[in-house]
């Protein structure tokens, strides 16, 4: 039965498809192939989510070796939810890849792009699907190494430096994670996540466990670009090819946050997190600093891709903030924002891909007058921007609403105030783009540059799918909220 092998198919399809791309040298053929593979992964993840919601968690013994000796793939509602986010965004982004890349990459590089892309996808899916701590590290490196290559494909030579910096930071982060996992193994003698959770609970006070925890959390925070470990992110996002930025911004950091949630709440346990140290306050303070500093820096950016990259750092702050509350409500807010932020940033960076396609630059200067020339693209930036600010009827509102409710339950009024301040800062940086697009006249005579017109449908379509999702999930929250509730219930035992 194929249905029983879904957990491994999820990872193995893109992993095996990646080297097969070499056989297809034609840019269009390889694109069709990659799109097909990503769509297959998407279908698998939908089936998995359905299966998990109907019958509960799935445990898959890789190669028939029973856990904890063999590697186990373990899918519960949290994994299935993340798999759905990653595969859906990947498929939507790929829809536009062929058109957008035609302008940004020479034809003979397309094959390499799709190989790295599929490997990155396989790595991200592997991190989520696996139930083995060391396997997480391996897949993390698969996805990281391929994303360094993807970023280096950027047109400007600054992409190379950005990729190099990310490689250095990312490797340090991954090595820290490796040390953390090693120390966990040292203390417990197991690498299986379920087993680790059981055995760590029996160890009363151990310096090894604390050291493991510390190394691990720092490593993951580098990977998810928590302020002040975010230095690699703005340049990497700004100079990578547009579709790569859209894909990474919407998925890579989300998967890192999943790793944090999984290790913190499943393996170390909620009690360890809330009682043994100042972890909560530490993350809370860093998250708040991240939101306010990154939003302020975003206001001063003249490259719109960089602007949204800094805004991503701020949004990661919101996710960590919800996480650091340490209650079911906070976790729900984080999970909602994972999904919602993927939709917003996916839409915004895809819209920037459309601008790059027609204008060739994403400097704020070149946005002047685009409101008239590219009405649909700019309208999608308006919608994405409103969602980023958190206006009602968009997904941004839903996640902020749940975050504020969770904070009020704790009685943290002060933090709520700072969040609202962060939203105001978002209003300013989104406004700067809209002002340039709608209220500034184009610099030169429009007749001289007639080639700037609406982006082709192949880019607009995925953009508007994402914009529509932004609005749809802002109104009908059944899927996202129900699944998030279910996940939080699994960790905290009570239904919030």
């Amino acid at each position: 039965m194929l249905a029983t092998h879904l957990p491994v198919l999820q990872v193995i399809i893109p992993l095996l498809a990646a080297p097969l791309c070499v056989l297809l040298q034609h840019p269009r053929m390889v694109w069709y192939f990659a799109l097909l593979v990503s769509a297959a992964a998407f279908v698998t993840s939908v089936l998995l989510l359905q299966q998990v919601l109907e019958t509960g968690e799935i445990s898959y013994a890789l190669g028939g070796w029973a856990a904890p000796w063999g590697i186990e793939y373990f899918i519960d509602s949290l994994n299935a939810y993340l798999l759905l986010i990653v595969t859906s965004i990947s498929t939507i982004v790929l829809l536009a890849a062929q058109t957008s890349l035609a302008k940004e990459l020479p034809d003979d590089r397309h094959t390499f792009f799709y190989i790295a892309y599929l490997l990155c996808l396989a790595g991200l899916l592997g991190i989520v699907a696996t139930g083995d701590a060391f396997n997480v590290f391996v897949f993390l490196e698969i996805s990281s190494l391929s994303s360094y290559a993807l970023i280096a494909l950027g047109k400007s030579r600054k992409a190379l430096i950005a990729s190099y910096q990310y490689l250095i930071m990312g490797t340090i982060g991954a090595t820290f994670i490796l040390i953390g996992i090693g120390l966990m193994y040292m203390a417990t003698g197991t690498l299986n996540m379920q087993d680790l959770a059981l055995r760590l609970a029996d160890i009363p006070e151990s310096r090894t466990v604390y050291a493991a925890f510390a190394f691990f959390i720092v490593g993951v925070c580098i990977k998810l670009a928590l302020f002040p470990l975010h230095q690699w992110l703005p340049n990497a996002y700004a100079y990578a090819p547009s579709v790569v930025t859209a894909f990474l911004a919407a998925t890579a950091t989300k998967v890192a946050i999943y790793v944090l949630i999984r290790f913190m709440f499943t393996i170390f346990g909620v009690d360890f997190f809330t009682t043994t140290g100042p972890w909560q306050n530490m993350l809370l303070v860093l998250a708040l600093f991240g939101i306010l500093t990154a939003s302020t820096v975003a206001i001063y950016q003249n490259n719109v891709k960089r602007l949204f990259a800094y805004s991503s750092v701020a949004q990661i702050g919101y996710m960590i903030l919800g996480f650091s509350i340490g209650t079911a409500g906070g976790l729900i807010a984080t999970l909602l924002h994972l999904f919602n932020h993927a939709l917003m940033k996916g839409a915004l960076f895809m819209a920037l891909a459309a601008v790059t396609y027609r204008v060739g630059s994403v400097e704020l200067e070149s946005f002047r007058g685009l409101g008239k020339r590219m009405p649909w693209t700019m309208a999608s930036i308006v919608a994405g921007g409103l969602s980023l600010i958190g206006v009602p009827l968009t997904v941004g509102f839903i996640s902020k609403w749940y975050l504020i409710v969770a904070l009020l339950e704790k009685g943290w009024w002060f933090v709520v105030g700072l969040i609202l301040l962060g939203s105001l800062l978002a209003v300013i940086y989104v406004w700067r783009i809209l002002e340039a697009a709608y209220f500034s006249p184009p610099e030169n005579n429009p007749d001289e540059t007639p080639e700037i017109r609406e982006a082709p449908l192949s880019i607009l379509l995925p953009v508007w799918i994402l914009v529509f999702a932004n609005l749809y999930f802002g109104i009908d929250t059944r899927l996202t909220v129900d699944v998030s509730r279910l996940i939080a219930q699994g960790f905290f035992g009570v239904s919030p």
Partner: protein
Amino acid sequence: MNTLGLYNYWVVIVLMMTGFYIVIAQGNLIKKIVGLSIFQTSVFILYISMSTVSGGSAPILKEGISLYSNPLPHVLILTAIVVGIATTALGLALVVRIKEAYGSIEEDVIHDKDEKEC
């Protein structure tokens, strides 16, 4: 537990900090990668050290030996070594491309060239 008995772990820490320091302090892109490799290598030694069982022999099946060291960390670290090589290779490939694009592999020179461009 005497201090000398933890000799391996002291070496791990010294190597780790040496590598980390090189990554942070050096401006030369190749030297940074050298530092990164040293940093990663220290973790390999950490894993191998923890697998020791006192009195145990190397984990190779042989008659007359009943106590073996734990082979699992060895296997894990084989994977990590492969990952380390891939990272170094990719890093060096990037440095080659950077050298072609900028004509230098010194961080400050590259930074200056980027500043002038703007």
